[in-house]
């Protein structure tokens, strides 16, 4: 790891100020991606602004019919939350399947979506549920938030405060994990909501999480696994590497989508 400065502010305002004062600073959430990246000298920020002491970024609450989860809430806390389990159990599946127990004890919702790793699980869940990302300055719809591999709508210095997840009628997440890294090779989040069916895929495409409109249409007409049978997932634009060809990932997307639909009950 290269040498770096470090600050641990106690409020959102101080964190934003600290970052803007830094030459080339980075927010440090759980660090489960950032620290390994720094260790391998693949990034060299001048400053790390640790968000671990900011109370207003923590916690799980409700907002009307929606769940609001603080950006610094760990995956383990989401996975074990009775509130989440009763409102949106599919989020328990998502959070409980990220990384390993030690990653889940430290890794956070905000860190995951700000990084927008194309194989991360949370981006698919946000897109699938039509969530909103609340930052220190505005609210961004999930559909507008994820802009491609490691890219989001966040401006420089903008900090995610929480995510608002509207409660769906039913939702489920099915994931096929890369056998080595256990990241998603194809994760499909399916939600039946009052405003229609939403299907989001993560892990398969180089561009990261995205909606699958053909599947949404088919499921809107007939919410059953069989409704997806006629659909062919186009392998163009899907990742191809030693773990899976684009054709294989296209197959996985369909298989996982059907399993998610089945799990919606």
């Amino acid at each position, binding site marked *: 790891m290269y*040498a770096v400065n470090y600050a641990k502010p106690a409020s959102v305002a101080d964190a934003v100020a600290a970052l803007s004062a830094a030459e080339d600073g980075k927010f440090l959430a759980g660090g*489960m991606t950032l620290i390994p990246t720094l260790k391998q000298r693949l990034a060299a920020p001048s400053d790390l602004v640790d968000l671990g002491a900011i109370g207003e970024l923590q916690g799980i609450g409700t907002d009307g019919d929606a769940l609001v989860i603080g950006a610094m809430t760990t995956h383990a806390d989401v996975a074990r939350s009775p509130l989440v389990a009763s409102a949106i159990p599919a989020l328990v599946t998502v959070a409980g399947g990220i990384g390993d127990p*030690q990653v889940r*004890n430290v890794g956070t919702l905000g860190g995951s979506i700000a990084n927008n790793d194309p194989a991360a699980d949370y981006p698919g869940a946000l897109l699938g549920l039509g969530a909103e990302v609340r930052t220190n300055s505005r609210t961004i719809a999930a559909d507008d938030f994820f802009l491609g591999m490691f890219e989001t709508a966040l401006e420089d210095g903008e900090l995610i405060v929480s995510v608002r997840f509207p409660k769906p009628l039913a939702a489920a997440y099915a994931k096929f994990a890369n056998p080595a890294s256990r990241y998603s090779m194809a994760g499909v989040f399916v939600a039946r909501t009052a405003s229609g069916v939403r299907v989001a895929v993560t892990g398969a495409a180089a561009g990261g999480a995205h909606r699958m409109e053909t599947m949404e249409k088919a499921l809107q007409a007939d919410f059953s696994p069989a409704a997806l049978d006629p659909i062919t997932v186009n392998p163009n634009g899907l990742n191809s590497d030693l773990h899976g060809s684009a054709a294989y990932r296209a197959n996985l997307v369909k298989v996982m989508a059907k399993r998610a639909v089945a799990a919606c009950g």
Partner: protein
Amino acid sequence: MSTTVSLTVNGKPCTVEVEPRTLLSALLRDKLGLTGTHVGCDTSQCGACVVHVDGKSRKSCTTLAVQVDGAEVTTIEGLAAADGTLHPMQEAFRENHGLQCGFCTPGMVMSAVDLLHTNPSPTEAEVREWLEGNICRCTGYHNIVKAILDCAANLRGAQQAAE
């Protein structure tokens, strides 16, 4: 560029000078001489470095020492009782031959202890799933899983006996 962190390690308060880039694993091994915490990879996957921070298992190789300023840290050296009596999980690993070369063992044991904190009666499948972040090359995991299930059963038995 050095700074100081104060933390409690295995019940003992300590204040140590570190760089912001110093990892918790390096603080434990190089500054405190607690070499039971091992480093087996550079991608945060092998779990040989797992310790407890404020009671939860965490990868010390993926934690900056400055992040845990003020925290309580328990390492493998702090698990046995002061008189040397092994922790029930250590004893279960010994009894069930849950270790061979011993390198992954500290992280494996610390991870297993945390499992039983969160789930005192895990199934075999839950144990295997929990160990996703702990790689062992020697045992095929067979006796590790056996040891953890055995420890859980022993602790439940002890609790029932106490009630």
